[in-house]
């Protein structure tokens, strides 16, 4: 190296350092776009909808008069649809995940199921709506009901639950299974007493992420023909006589939070936009709360497991 090269080398180093700083700033700004969007979105809805958020807003039916309209039928509908979704997707998804991880032999059929689950995760949600319209609404004759909507969203989040279950099971070390088999346990005993309990935090995370996605889904529910103006509640799930259960609500017409918001958003009047902001604010709070729970489970509950 000659002495006159040193200034040149220093120049190159300086330039590289400048470029590096520039990129760090760019990266930070890119992050900021995401963060600012989030803040702007949340703040705008909070400011625009704040006046409307009152106890009445939760206990009133939608109305032609924007000032009296509320989200009673929407949040009750969302709750009941979510119930059907959870009851259909969680057992199916967990069972499928267990089968693929613990039972499935390595053969063509297993490969088909695996590729299929991956592909289903990439199918647009509106296509699930078309599936439900053709199969649940017309072929099975469930009609435009809570049952159809819940099953549709159940199918939609099934891949999420399956993938979460599998990943969670895969992280359980082999020696846990070997110890149980060594004592003469059967495959199901190993699964029921060891695999499922240990993978529960991971499964829960997946289920909550899936449910928080389902609660915000609008397109597939509109596709099955949900109405946008509902001024009644489904029948109560608790019946007057033994066994105190009533399943009439499954066949009821309904609306859900995102559809109520869509309905208000697509009206030109200022007052309805205010309702849309308020409904959106509550919807985002609901999904944020669910996401926060899943993040909390992942960061805290899982850390406590030491194999």
């Amino acid at each position, binding site marked *: 190296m000659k002495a006159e090269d040193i200034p040149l080398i220093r120049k190159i180093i300086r330039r590289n350092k400048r470029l*590096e700083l520039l990129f760090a700033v760019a990266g930070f700004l890119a992050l900021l776009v995401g963060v600012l969007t989030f803040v702007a979105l949340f703040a705008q809805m909070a400011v625009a909808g704040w006046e409307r958020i009152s106890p009445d807003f939760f206990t009133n039916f939608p109305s032609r008069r924007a000032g009296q309209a509320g989200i009673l039928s929407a949040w009750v509908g969302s709750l009941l649809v979510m119930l059907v979704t959870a009851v259909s997707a969680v057992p199916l998804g967990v069972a499928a995940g267990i089968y693929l991880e613990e039972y499935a032999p390595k053969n063509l059929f297993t490969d088909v199921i695996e590729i299929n689950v991956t592909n289903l995760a990439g199918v647009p949600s509106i296509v699930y709506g078309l599936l439900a319209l053709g199969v649940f609404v017309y072929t099975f004759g469930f009609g435009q009901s809570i049952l159809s909507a819940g099953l549709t969203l159940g199918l939609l989040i099934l891949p999420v639950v399956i993938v979460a279950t599998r990943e969670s099971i895969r992280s359980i070390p082999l020696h846990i299974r070997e110890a149980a088999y060594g004592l003469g346990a059967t495959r199901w005993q190993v699964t029921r007493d060891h695999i499922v309990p240990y993978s529960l935090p991971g499964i829960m995370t997946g289920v909550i992420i899936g449910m928080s996605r389902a609660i915000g889904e609008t397109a597939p529910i509109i596709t099955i023909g949900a109405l946008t103006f509902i001024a009644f509640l489904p029948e109560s799930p608790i019946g007057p006589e033994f066994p105190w259960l009533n399943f009439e609500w499954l066949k009821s017409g309904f609306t859900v939070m995102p559809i109520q918001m869509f309905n208000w958003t697509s009206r030109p009047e200022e007052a309805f936009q205010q309702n849309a902001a308020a409904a959106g604010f509550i919807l985002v709070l609901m*999904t944020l709360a669910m996401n926060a729970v899943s993040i909390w489970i992942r960061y805290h509950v899982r850390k406590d497991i030491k194999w």
Partner: protein
Amino acid sequence: MQETNSGGAAALASYGPLSVSDRLAKKALRNFKERVIELLLLGAACVSVLTTIGIIWVLVSESVNFFGTVSIWSFLTDTMWTPLFAEPRYGILPLLAGTLTTSLVALLVAIPLGTTIAIYLSEFARPTVREIVKPFLELLGGIPTIVYGYFALMVVIPLLQLIMPDLSGFNMLGAGIVMGIAIIPYVSSLAEDAMRAVPMSMREGSYAMGATRLQTAFRVVFPAALSGILSAYILGISRAVGETMIVAVAAGMQPNFTVNPLEPAQTISAYIVQVALGDLPHGSIGYQSIFAAGLSLMLMTLALNLVGHVVRRRFREAY
């Protein structure tokens, strides 16, 4: 007492309270139970296959009816989509143009921003920053798309109108930008995972040669993670093509054969929503048309998925 006198049987009985035949019967019962449970679990795994079969069956069977009335040729080449008019025309091109234009705008936002965020988080940011930012991005990805649609209509389009005063109240630009922001988390999180999977030794080798973090990121880590990054992009494209509510709210619901993002238009998915909101009788041509539109959408995302598989295989780096 009696058992101790009966020789071999006593020896066996001392292993447990059950006789041999009882133990065999119990084992058979246990095997039977295991078999039943395995079949139940297998049944659950088959639901996903049934879902796929159901999707294909529904889309194809209704589309076959649709193409019984409308010729495939005019469906693919007609530049008018007016299914609800007195003289209906069924040309998918306007919807296709709307879908591709909004997706393109979205990708022009999501890919540069998503990639920059991914590189920044995996190569530059301190672990504490990463721990805070990643869940935040996940929250951004968890916001319902109807809320994004409202945001596009109420905030982003008015902002754009400040810059471009003659922009109409519904347009593909605003919808596309917001859609891009909505899919940033999918792109950045997958791309970051791919880059973090690149072994540390490759970075150390690069640093040892005197490279900066930036040079290492772009010339070593990025190429090494290319297959994962490309599949992140393809997932982003697939999301953009299938995204519904943002375009249904903010892009204008008018089938418009244009690729100019400043104009209102309708996408394939937004058309399905529009028809489903009305009260079309089951079996009518309008009802069948949403399945034909859905089939087109499905074929597009399927093609993207296939490209994704090929890309992952073709560009996979083995360390």
